């Protein structure tokens, strides 16, 4: 029993002897370089290109909206012409 208790105490006491592991120097260096790495990633796409893409998408959406509104008004015109034609036939 005493031996068992001693063994348990030995195992439990290991937790107090565990050192915080040393971070490798190269890893620490890489961490310190994170700001410049992140900035270079952000700077990889020039702002001018980003604005150009945004403007192209906006123009595309505007053209689509314009095209759909024009096609709707054409349908209305065509259907009103058809109605007038058939009502004329009915009168005959």
């Amino acid at each position, binding site marked *: 029993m005493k031996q*068992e208790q001693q*063994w*348990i105490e*030995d*195992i*439990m006491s*290991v*937790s*107090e*002897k*565990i*050192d*915080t*592991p*040393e*971070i*490798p120097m190269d*890893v*620490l260096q*890489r*961490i*310190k370089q*994170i*700001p410049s790495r*992140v900035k270079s990633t952000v700077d990889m796409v020039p702002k001018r290109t980003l604005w150009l893409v945004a403007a192209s998408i906006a123009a595309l959406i505007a053209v689509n909206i314009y095209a759909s509104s024009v096609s709707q008004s054409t349908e209305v015109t065509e259907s009103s012409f058809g109605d007038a034609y058939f009502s004329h036939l009915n009168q005959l």
Partner: protein
Amino acid sequence: MTEQEFIACAKRDRDAAFSYLTDTYAQKVYGSCVQLVRNAEDAEDLVQEVFTSIYLSLDSFGGKSKLSTWIYAVTQNKAKEFLRNKNRLKRKGTLTVIDEYAEGFSRSTTNFNHPGVQLEDKEKAHILFQAIDTLAENQATAFRLAKIEGYSYAEIAEMMELSVSSIESLLFRANKRLRVILADFYEKNKS
């Protein structure tokens, strides 16, 4: 540096604030990463992911909690994500590793070689880590943070969002349970 001073510093000079964080916390975060992913090489990758995430979200730190608590929360989330991704890769068969991670934080200690353990204590530490893994998750977390990573009860209470007395109680139960588990292990391996 207090939390409010840190926020002011981050607004003034983001890179200087980040430099302060790396100088103060890189060591501790690496220690937590080793404990969480149970592999020194993975911990090296993870600690970089943690600090990248910290750098990108410096603005989101509002000073409501301590810096150490915020950093530990980021570390825990990143570790969970890291383990989940590693599990997914393993299931797909694109990654072959010998040690086994189960879902979340319940991992096998089979190949865990903690870099902070002295050579003569390796075997004992291996038994202790195995015993810790059989504890309830919150007991294991409290024990690990207090006994292995050396955080104060107050810090652990903040990290785990519990009161200091709850942490004391968790540690008391963890110690008691560990002794039972170790006694059982001793009985089975006596011969």
